Structure formats: C-alpha cells, structure tokens
C-alpha cells in the first residue's frame, strides 16, 4: 500500500544527523539512545504495519526530566518528534518519519502510588494498561478502559488516543478515567495538569490533551481513576438468525433501561474466525452473535439476565448460552479480544474503527457488505454494539498490491459511510496517518482550522507527531 503520503524528509535535518545524535547523547545515558539501523528497525512502524519509516534516532528516557531535555533540544533544533507508547496503534499514530526522533516511554513503566481511599493510581506513561488493573485487582479494584491490546498497550498511548474498550458502555473511555497528567511541552517545560480531584480550574486542558495523539506534548505520568469491581460479572452469548434482529435486540435492551457493562457484536465470519482460535463455545449456526455482560451479585445478575433474555426472545434469539464458570467467561472474552489476532492467522486484514448511530446498524451492515464485495474482498465484523463503534476487518493478501489497494479503498468507503449516516471516522483507535486524509470528509475547513489553531498553541512549528491527524495540505500554524 502506498496511498498515504509522508512529509518529504527535511534534508537539512538529515544532514545534521551526527550533530543531533551527539546532542541527544549529552542528554541521556548511552543505553537510552538508539542509533544503529538494526536497533531502530523495531520502531519503524506500529500495528499499522503496511507503513514504515526508519526514524533518525530513538531515545528511551527514564525520567520526566530527560524527556524535557530531549524535547527542548529537538524543539530548538527544529527536529520532529514522534512520541511512542508501546507501538500498538492501529491507526499509525506511532509511525515515525526519517527526519524524526522517536521518544519512547517504555522504560518509564513504574506504578508510583496507589490510593484506594481516594480511588486513584499514579502511574508512569509506559505502564501497560493491564498492569494497572493487575496491580490493584487483589484489592478488588480495576482500571476501566480495556482496549483489546491491553496486555501490551501503554497508558501513555491510551491517553494519546483516548482509547476505549469493550466495557466503556458503562465505564467510559480514557478521557473519563484520567484525572491528571504530567505533560512535557515542546520547550521543555513540565506542567502538572489536573490531579487527584475531579474537576479542572479554568479551561479543561486535560480534556484537550487526552486524545491529542501526541501533538501537544509528551505525557510522562498520569493520575487515573481506579474503580471497585462488581461482585461478579458474567458474559452471556446470544445467537441471532440475522444481524437485524441482533441490532433490534440491542436497541430494545437499552430502551428498557438496562445498560449492560458490555454488548459486543460479531457476525458469522467473525464468529468462525474467533471460535477456531479461542474455542470459546460460540454458536456456529447463527448469523450474528451478541456477547452481553452483566455485573453484580449472583442474584442481581440472574435478575438482569432474565430481563435481557426475555427481550432477546422477543427479537428472535436462537441460542442463549450463559457462562457457567470463570474459565468459560475468560474463554468468551478471549475469543472477542483476540478477534484481530485470530483474523491475522487466516489473512491479512485492515481494521476500521468508525462509529455510527446504532439505529443505522442494519443499513450500515448491509452497505458494508456490498462495498467490500464490490471490491471482491471479504469482511468480518466485530464491534461494540451498545455504542455503535464498528470494527469491520477487511481481509486481503498483503503480497498482492492490487488487492491491498482495494482493501484500503474499501476501508475508506466504509468510513465515509459512517460519516454519512451521522457517525465519525474513529471511535477509539485515533486518526493517526490512516484516517488523516479523510478528516476533510468529516470536518469543514473552519472546524479543522480551529483545531489546528489550538494545536499551534502547543507547537507552532509542527514538530510534534507532525504527519498525523491533519491533512498535510492546508495546515494552519496560528
């Protein structure tokens, strides 16, 4: 694939490479600076592997002060900076460029403090999402946002992309669960935004930083909310003869005043792929599967499930299968959360992330199928049904450039469809490079200019993660 353009590397920066590296070497210990081509290679891409660019250098600082020194230096030298968490972005948010320095926060991976009475944790940006929950689970607490990549992805990356997950229907996404950050700005200033309290003094700069895709600064620490887990949780599988009936059941459940913690949808191709991988006991004779999770005491879960089952029956549910054990629950979620990985075993795929108003679900599912078939490809659908966040996986062969281009084109058509029906280009993965050139489809020039003017308050020179989010043409610097 070659459709997405990168900025032309700045020759004047490349020509100064030795001096820039020498400058960086004065700021961090030798082991924190990566310059050889072999060692830079792992940083050339993220989870959007179709695109890659070898960065000029990679630095792995251990402290906020080191990050500040690197930022100040790069800012003064006019060198682009690409912040990197764990490199799991599906949107290419962490893909570097040849004239850039990657600042990776992977060494800043400590949990600094846990405060159960105030229900917050202070963590460094390189801590993995799941490690936060792991640290507090013995006390019955958890960190709510749970992207599928949670084993690997970092809190810093989650903040950059405002990551979601399967359980955000009840618990919200990253922006609803972060109370404060330490932000290093391009001039090297270190600012504390927010804290352990619940609201901001003055403008909500924290709300702006979350989801800013590394374009406003580098987050090195965060104060996140930790929540007490429910007494129990139980996922239940509901198999439907058609996607329309599954979609109608979701609407009816919400209409009845029930908000399950999660409602996940899989279509037949996705069911087959995930079942083959996870052996989760998914029903194979249905066209659509809902995984609905309820929480509470056993009695509470029974009562809530009874209501949900009754609604599902009114909407033609064919199979209802309750998890009978913790192991079975884990298998059910393993199947769903490994949907992307499992798909990768049978074909190359690109994963889209648009959101639609849930009322448009039947129409959009039908249209997506037509679009992908029109390109002669196949699609598997997994998505968060409660909030309309779609994840169509378009299957293709990456060794066939024609097919690869078709897959990318089909993906773009699907995202345009999402916008047309009143939704958006990305629900939780971020814009990155992947959806950058579609931004003009969702936003008009005034909308984008206002965003870019706010961005310019932090970075007039377009040095921070510059190839991302905003189309390369028509950029505004103030």
């Amino acid at each position, binding site marked *: 694939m070659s459709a997405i353009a990168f900025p032309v590397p700045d020759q004047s920066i490349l020509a100064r490479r030795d001096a820039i590296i020498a400058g960086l070497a004065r700021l961090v210990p030798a082991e924190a600076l990566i310059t050889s081509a072999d060692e830079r290679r792992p940083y050339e891409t993220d989870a959007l592997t179709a695109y890659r660019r070898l960065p000029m250098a990679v630095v792995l600082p251990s402290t906020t002060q080191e990050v500040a020194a690197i930022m100040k230096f790069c800012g003064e030298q006019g060198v682009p900076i690409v912040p990197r968490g764990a490199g799991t972005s599906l949107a290419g948010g962490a893909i570097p460029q040849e004239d850039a320095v990657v600042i990776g926060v992977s060494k800043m991976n400590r949990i600094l403090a846990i405060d159960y009475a105030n229900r917050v944790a202070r963590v460094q940006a390189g801590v993995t999402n799941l490690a936060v929950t792991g640290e507090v689970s013995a006390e019955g607490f958890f960190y709510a946002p749970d992207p599928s990549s949670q084993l690997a992805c970092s809190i810093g990356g989650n903040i950059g992309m405002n990551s979601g997950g399967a359980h955000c229907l009840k618990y919200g996404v990253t922006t609803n669960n972060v109370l404060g950050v330490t932000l290093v700005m391009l001039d090297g*200033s270190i600012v504390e935004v927010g804290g352990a309290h619940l609201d901001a003094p003055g403008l909500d700069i924290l*709300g702006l930083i979350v989801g800013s895709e590394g374009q406003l600064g580098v987050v090195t620490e965060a104060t996140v909310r930790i929540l007490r887990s429910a007494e129990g949780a139980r996922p239940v599988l509901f198999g439907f003869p058609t996607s329309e009936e599954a979609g109608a059941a979701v609407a009816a459940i919400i209409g009845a005043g029930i908000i399950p913690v999660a409602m996940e949808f899989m279509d037949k191709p996705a069911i087959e792929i995930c079942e083959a991988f996870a052996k989760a006991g998914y029903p194979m004779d249905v066209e659509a599967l809902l995984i609905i999770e309820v929480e509470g005491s056993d009695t509470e879960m029974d009562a809530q499930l009874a209501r949900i089952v009754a609604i599902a029956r009114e909407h033609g549910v064919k199979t209802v299968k309750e998890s009978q054990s913790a192991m079975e629950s884990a298998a059910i979620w393993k199947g769903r959360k490994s949907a992307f990985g499992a798909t990768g075993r049978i074909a190359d795929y690109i994963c889209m992330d648009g959101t639609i108003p849930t009322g448009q679900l039947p129409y959009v599912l039908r249209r997506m199928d037509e679009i992908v078939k029109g390109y002669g490809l196949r699609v598997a659908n997994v998505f968060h049904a409660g909030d309309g966040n779609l994840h169509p996986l378009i299957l293709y062969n990456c060794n066939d450039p024609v097919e690869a281009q078709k897959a990318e084109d089909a993906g773009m058509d699907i995202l345009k469809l999402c916008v047309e029906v009143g*939704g958006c280009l990305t629900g939780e993965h971020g814009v990155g490079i992947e959806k950058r050139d579609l931004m003009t489809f969702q936003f008009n020039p005034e909308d984008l200019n206002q965003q870019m003017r706010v961005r310019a308050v932090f970075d007039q020179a377009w040095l921070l993660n510059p190839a991302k989010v905003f189309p390369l043409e028509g950029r505004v610097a103030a």
Partner: protein
Amino acid sequence: MTLHIPATEAQACAIVKSVIESGTPLSIIGGNTRAGLGRPTQTQSTLSSAGLTGITLYEPSEMVIGARAGTPLALVQETLAARGQMLPFEPMDHRALLGSEGEPTIGAVAAGNVSGPRRINAGAARDSLIGIRLVNGRGEAIKSGGRVMKNVTGLDLVKLVSGSYGTLGFLTEVIFRVLPVPERVVTLVWRGLSDEAAVALLSAALGSPFEPFAAAHLPEGIGADQARTLLRLENFSDSIDYRSRELGDLLRVHGAPEMIEGEASLELWHDVRDARFFSGTEEAVWRLSLAPTLGPKATATISARVPGARWFYDWGGGLVWLAVPAGEDAAAGAIRAAIKPLGGHATLVRAPAAIRASVPVFEPLAEPLMRVSTGIKTSFDPAGIFEPGRIYAGT
C-alpha cells in the same frame, strides 16, 4: 447596552462579525441564571441564545439528545423523562445560591460544565457532552464531536468549550448522551458523625462493589442540628434492597443507617446539589476541589483561620462547599493557602462583584498553563470579544 438575539446560527455569525469590526465585547447569556459566576465582565452588548430553542435530535434507543443552546433545561429534562431517561450528571440549579431568576438553558449547562452529586459515579457534564456547534470569535460556525458517544476524531474541543463560560465562543447547539432513569432511588443516612469519620464512611462505600451514585456529608448545623452522612443508591428495586443491606453491614461501625426515599430523598439531594444551605445569606461561597480524603483537612485548616466558616461535602469529600463571611476578599488568601499544599483548587462561586473583580475567582495557574490558557482563548477569539476577563483578568 445592545441585546442581540439571533434566531439562527447564521445570524449569530453575522452578529459576531459585526462586533469584531466595532470592537465592542460581548456578554453571552442563556437564561441569565448563572451570570454571577466568574469574574464580572465589562461589556456593552449581550448575545443571547434565547432565539435558538428546540430539541434537534432525540433517539432514546441510542441514548442521545441534541438541542439548540437556548432550549430550557427543563424542556430537555421533561422530554427525557417522558421516555424514562435523564441527563446522567444531575446539573446544579444555581438560582437558589445566586439569588438569580430566569430559566436555565441547556447551553449554559454545557458552557459551565454544570454537574451535581452524580458526577462522582456518572461523570460531569463534560463527560456526557458529545457534540457542540459553536460560533467562534471569527464569526465562523464550527462543530466538534457529534451524535455518537464513541468519537476520537480530531482534537476534543468539546471538553475545552465545556467549562469555558462563553469565553471561547457562542454555543448554538449541544448534544448529550443520556441514561435511563433508575427504577428506584434511596438514600441511606447516618447521623452524628465527625467530618473525618463521615469521609472515611463515604470512601469505604465508594470503594465497595455496591456502587453509590452520590455521597455527601452535612456537618451539624447544615440543614439540621445533627450531622448527616448520605449515600444514594440507584438501581432495580431488588438490588436496592440487597445493596443497602450489604452497605449497612459493611459500614456498621458507624451505626445503623436510616433509609429514606421518594420526595424526602429527592429534596435532600436538591439541597446538596444546589448548595441551598447557603442560599439567601450574605456569605461568600467557595467550591474546593481536592482528593476526597483531604476535604476534612482543608476545612480544619480553614476553620482555624477564618472565623464563621461553614461547609458541607459532596463527591465523597472531594467537593467542599464553603461559606465564609464575605469581608473584603472572601478570605481568599487563607483559603488558597490551605488548599495549595493539598493539591486541590478553590473557585469563588458567590461574592459581591467588587470582590470577584479583585480576587482571582478561578485558581491562578502556573506559568506554562496560564500561557496555554491564554493561547487557547486567542485561538478561538483573537479579537477578545467574548466575555473578556470572565475567567482570568486580562484575557
């Protein structure tokens, strides 16, 4: 004094453009019930959302409602209630506290990030606000967010505008996510606890699996002779029975709670939400925001330095409503000095205009953040025409 009442977004754009030319700054009002919040502004003209009303979108099964900015909050709430839904964040009504009259609007709820006791569980207004349309200081109509709740497309200007008190632009339309009204709501009340014991109780409850939706403490003299510690549960009826029993058990060291529901429970939480305990007095009123367990520490320090201070706690202790004799500076120095080492911040919510003009109403920011805030204001409003000085003097 000119009052502009645009009937359409295009008219609002035209008015703003004309104002840029004349250079006369604008106040922005909805129902004019929250005009007393922030620093007093000196403006010759006012831009009102009164001509922009009506629900623009309501899809109960998608849990989303949109309305033009001047739509009365009451209409939004009635529309939702008719379908068994509600705004998740229980917005405060400022009329009792500020002694204002008029009809609160949905736009002002968004612009002021106006939340209530439910914030601790369900998030603030900013967490439910998913889309806005806004006329910026260039006279351009811009949008951010949209009608779907999962949306990370581009910079989140929605959050910035929520809580900006009109300083970034004139909202024309807002879209919120909504939630079902719970089947049953009850309040558990413990009596006679000290502030420390009460906040410990609230922390234990909020750290339990029984999911309180609101957690407040009213020290003695606040609405009753005896101190009251309140936990509100919202759920299906059977769950309420189970959870209140479990919570009573978990917290039995603090004594057995009384359970109230219906009108009595509702009224009590309206008092907390609207800080009605301080309505009609001459006192200055502050909101202190800090980590919940630090609430009692802050009030102890303040009470030692500011005679006559009274307070109560919401958000499990993390929001302190504080009333002090107005004096010359609403005791700003003592209050901010007490808060600073605790890592929180203080906002002056009610005081005579002269005090709000001389004392920083919002917590002064460290230099880089102040520079960023000023830059953001300029990026939306380069000519400085919207509510100049409402948040910080000179911007």
